[in-house]
């Protein structure tokens, strides 16, 4: 299948949508499909062979922050040319409600169009204001995908119509192998945590309380904590003074270092107290094959297969977490078994599985339809 994908945001800026598109495109290529992605990008940005740059994105205020988007008549003509030359069987636009390439692609294209909605931002009034202009584009979409239930709800409430929910995948390959950070995990063992330190629902306080119990019993045990914090000193202060030198805060880390962090610990802890719909960090840790101890919230029950692919503890209960983590630290055989089970379980969430779900949406919309072509819309732009 020949697939054209549009990315609304600048390729050189890290972001969830860009990463989603990269992982999806690569999974589709692995399945033997021909994929072309058009994305805003600076001229000197090195791009993967399947990405076509649509010129420099312009930083503009949108929705209360500054986004780097592609709009205007030059972008229209670039998108037109890309569609004309691409000969795609299906056009897959991402975030078509954002004023950028995806909306333009909807406007100038005809034929099978699939759209993926990532975020849950209600922009109903603005959409209504410009409805005649935006409607032309959005009405051409044949199949709609939402990456989460929240995104689907927003879509239904503010734009109307429905969408199938296909969650993000995990690029399990990328997590499989990495060198541990120098000196980790160390002879006394190490427990890891990833996530925003001050977001209470991520549950770091529960882990710190549990470490107050575990630390004195196990003199060599250390905590490795990665994630952004407004005030790291304050976080460290919550740990009793005698244990503080055994808590290492790395701050925000790069994608590569994140994988290394996962390979640097004996046990990974997901102490979330709620608010997770899937638990992407936990799934990534599973893909790295690190034994996991997670709270028994619904999302983790599901991804950890009710405790088969990771140890579960009572949500918010530091003593129970300390017991569960201690048991794992003492039992290398149990850790190896959980690691193998986690690797097997996370395969269900791999991008190859997600890509097949997306493909079946493509297959549905191309039925009885012709190839993607350009329409008269925007033809006045050379």
């Amino acid at each position, binding site marked *: 299948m020949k697939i054209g994908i549009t990315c609304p945001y600048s390729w050189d800026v890290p972001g969830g949508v860009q990463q989603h598109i990269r992982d999806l495109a690569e999974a589709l290529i692995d399945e033997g499909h021909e994929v072309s992605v058009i994305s805003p990008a600076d001229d000197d940005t090195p791009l993967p062979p399947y990405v076509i740059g649509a010129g420099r994105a312009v930083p503009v*205020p949108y929705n209360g922050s500054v986004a780097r988007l592609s*709009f205007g008549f030059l972008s229209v003509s670039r998108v037109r040319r890309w569609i004309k030359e691409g000969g795609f069987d299906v056009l897959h636009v991402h975030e078509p409600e954002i*004023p950028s390439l995806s909306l333009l692609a909807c406007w100038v294209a005809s034929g099978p169009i699939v759209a993926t909605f990532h975020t849950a931002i209600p922009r109903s009034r603005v959409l209504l204001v410009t409805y005649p202009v*935006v409607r032309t584009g959005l009405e051409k979409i044949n199949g709609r995908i939402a990456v989460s239930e929240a995104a689907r709800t927003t879509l239904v409430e503010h734009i109307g119509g429905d969408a199938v929910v296909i969650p993000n995948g995990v690029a399990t390959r990328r997590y499989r192998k990495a060198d541990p950070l120098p000196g980790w995990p160390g002879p006394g063992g190490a427990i890891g945590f990833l996530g925003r330190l001050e977001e209470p629902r991520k549950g770091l306080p529960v882990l710190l309380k549990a470490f107050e119990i575990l630390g004195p019993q196990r003199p060599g045990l250390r905590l490795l904590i990665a994630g952004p914090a407004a005030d790291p000193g304050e976080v460290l202060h919550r740990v009793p003074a005698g244990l503080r030198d055994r808590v290492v805060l790395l701050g925000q880390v790069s994608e590569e270092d994140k994988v290394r962090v996962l390979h640097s610990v004996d046990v990974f802890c997901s102490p979330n107290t709620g608010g997770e719909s899937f638990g992407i960090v936990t799934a990534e840790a599973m893909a790295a094959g690190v034994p996991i101890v997670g709270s028994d919230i619904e999302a983790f029950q599901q991804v950890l297969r009710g405790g088969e692919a990771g140890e579960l503890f009572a949500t918010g209960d530091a003593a129970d977490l300390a017991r569960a983590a201690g048991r794992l630290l003492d039992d290398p055989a149990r850790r190896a078994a959980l690691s193998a089970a986690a690797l097997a379980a996370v395969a269900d969430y791999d991008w190859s599985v997600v890509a097949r779900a997306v493909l079946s949406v493509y297959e549905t919309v191309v039925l009885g339809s012709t190839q993607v072509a350009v329409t008269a819309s925007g033809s006045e732009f050379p």
Partner: protein
Amino acid sequence: MITDIVIIVAAALFIGVYVSWRAGRIDRLHARVDMARAALDATLLRRSSVALELATSGLLDPATSLLLAGAVHGTRGGDRPRDLAESDLTRALRAVFSQPDFRASLNGKEGADELLAEVEVAAHQVFLARKFYNDVVAATREARRRPLARVLRLSGRASAPEFFEMDDSLVAESSGAPLGL
């Protein structure tokens, strides 16, 4: 004796007249601030409505339209403070107008020239109105700061007027000539 009384009365009279003249001046300045503020509000409102007209005119591609409409929407109250929301609209307009060959791309489209000119005039009026407003705010604040005004509380209960700061230039800092003006 008589002359002393005459002098004291004259001095008291003079001081009274002077103080009431100062108080009247501060009062007039506050009134001018109110007028300048109303004028500034009117120009901002006018700019928003012309920008919205451009957004919905069908002259532009849907992405540009949506961008402008979003910025206009932000100026009509919401979570963002007024000065930031109006600056956002300026930046959105600037991003649209500073595209290379933007004008040429609209050549020959009906009503395009008039509408673009109207946006530019409206944006320029915001620039002027804000300048005048901040001038009179500066004068008022200066008058209120004088020792006599402070000691005798000549400004009464009126609070000191605030400057209105925003990005109001349709011209990108790097490029030279103003657009069409």
